């Protein structure tokens, strides 16, 4: 097995290390664990300064993709460039921030000490540490707790600290693997603000998530993965073209549900049925069909497709 990190090789022609090279570029990136295909031929490009959402259900291969891009895993085949250099390049790691999905920091150190250690490893000039640490703690809302041991932190506070570690030193690219999994609604709101600020100053953000509303609110572009393959991608406008219809109906049998399949993919949640890809002009037809099947219709709400509608629809088709 080849070493997974510390590749010093230079990028091929065309992907030179300059600020014009994309933040991330992959070609047929594939990772297998024994018989499991975690990532099957991922090809994508994330431009500099963009907020890129990487969506997918559990086990889709999101974390695997991030670890491959950081050089923590060696690809089975395919290639990946990060900031113009091969993934895992030592020098490039100076300009990258990473919040792992499994975020854990030295419990015997204080938050300030953890940040100082990362400043030292980054490495940032010593004279800037104090300001950098103060600024970071304030950004992630831990200004009051900087001198406390990480071991005494709640889970959400540890994730905030992890976010702080990822932000240190104004990186060019930040990988956030489900950055709000442990955060309260206020924290989630804050994180959206932080991500927008990063993008505003030119940092590209690679955001792994299955919190669709979150992605919908901040991302410039998204890719939806399932079983290691990208099944859809593009800007939010490109992705969310269709419209959806939500109906509240009672009295439908299972047979009744299945005879509604001609109206496209449905998501049934008790009395609520969402037709994730149905245009508004078919609503009268839908309602009369439901009534014919013995259903009692209480509410019909046609709306623009949300990312969740589209996501469910895509997984249904996949």
């Amino acid at each position, binding site marked *: 097995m080849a070493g*997974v990190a510390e590749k010093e090789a230079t990028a091929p022609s065309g992907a030179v290390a300059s600020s014009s090279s994309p933040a991330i570029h992959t070609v047929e990136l594939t990772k297998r664990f024994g018989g499991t295909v975690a990532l099957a031929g991922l090809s994508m490009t994330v431009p500099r300064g963009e907020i890129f959402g990487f969506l997918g259900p559990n086990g889709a291969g999101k974390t695997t993709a991030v670890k491959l891009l950081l050089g923590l895993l060696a690809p089975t085949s395919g290639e990946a460039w990060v900031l113009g250099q091969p993934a895992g390049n030592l020098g490039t*790691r100076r300009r990258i921030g990473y919040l*792992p999905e499994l975020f854990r*920091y030295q419990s015997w150190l204080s938050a300030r000490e953890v940040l100082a250690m990362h400043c030292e*490893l980054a490495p940032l000039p010593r004279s800037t540490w104090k300001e950098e640490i103060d600024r970071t703690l304030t950004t992630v809302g831990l200004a009051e707790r900087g001198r406390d041991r990480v071991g005494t932190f709640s889970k959400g506070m540890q994730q905030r600290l992890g976010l702080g570690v990822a932000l240190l030193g104004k990186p060019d690219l930040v990988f956030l693997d489900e950055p709000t999994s442990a955060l309260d609604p206020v924290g989630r709101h804050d994180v959206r603000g932080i991500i927008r600020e990063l993008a505003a100053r030119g940092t590209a953000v690679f955001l792994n998530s299955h919190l669709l509303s979150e992605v919908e609110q901040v991302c410039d572009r998204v890719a939806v993965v399932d079983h290691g393959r990208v099944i859809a991608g593009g800007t939010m406008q490109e992705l969310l073209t269709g419209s959806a219809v939500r109906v509240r109906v009672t009295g439908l049998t299972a047979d009744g549900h299945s005879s509604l399949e001609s109206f496209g993919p449905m998501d049934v949640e008790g009395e609520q049925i969402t037709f994730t890809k149905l245009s508004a002009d078919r609503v009268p037809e839908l309602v009369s069909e439901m009534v014919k099947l013995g259903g009692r219709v209480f509410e019909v709400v046609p709306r623009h497709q949300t990312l969740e509608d589209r996501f469910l629809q895509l997984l249904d088709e996949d």
Partner: protein
Amino acid sequence: MPALPPVLVIARLTVQEASRRRLLLALVILTLIVVGISAWGFYKISTVTGPNGKPPSHEEVIIVSSQLLIFVTFVYSGVLALSAAVVAGPLISNEVESGLILSILARPVRRSEIVIGKWLGLAILVTIYAVGSAALEMTAVDWATTYVPPHPVELIIYVGLEGLALLSLGLLLSTRLSGITGGVIALVAWLMAWIGGIVGDIGTGLQNEAVQDVGIVSRLILPTDGLWRGAINAMEPDVILAQLRGAGAFARANPFAALDPPPVAFLLWVAVWFSLILFLSIWSFRTREI
């Protein structure tokens, strides 16, 4: 002040963890207790009265003290080996399992720097502990009986190297196996090496080459027993060495006796062994997927 190289940052972090987790404090307290008790024991040797109603002669005190010190050192080197294995076993594996290593690996730090840094941090601790506690114990024995082993510096070096060997083995296992598994394997290996050494001695006594080779091979795989023999040799007073030489080949079949200091070839092998283990650890960690 320029930034510290990553190796030293990792080494400092390792020492810091041991001290913040009160490992150092616990070791210091335990050492003081053990040294206190053994000092009292040694003091008793020189004051007890024999069947003839007289205290033992100076000669007798030296002989008994030297043998008792060998035994105390054996137990103590066992404790050092155990501590080194238990601390080194989870050193990398725990950080991989908990995810602690992820954010560090995303920094411009080579994996070799992490392995060497951790080894260095723990090696500093083992060395300080070995030197400090051995010096303390010898001072206590000197105070109680006026006995000082013939080669105190060599004694400390051999015992310290034994701890370092266990630490290196534990760290190597830690790059792939879980903390408990690695620690247990390292300890069992240490025990096997000790037994292998005894078997080899018996081979020498029987003048059976095949059995003798068991000892040699086990010493090559894990040199702890060879180092331990070096430590014993550094503690044997000339009187006893002369007696042992007179007793013939069978006298060598004794795990608490060593006639000669370790040969230079063995010491060279120890140096090679350390580099080999460290190299293997780096290779093993570099190729590990996290």
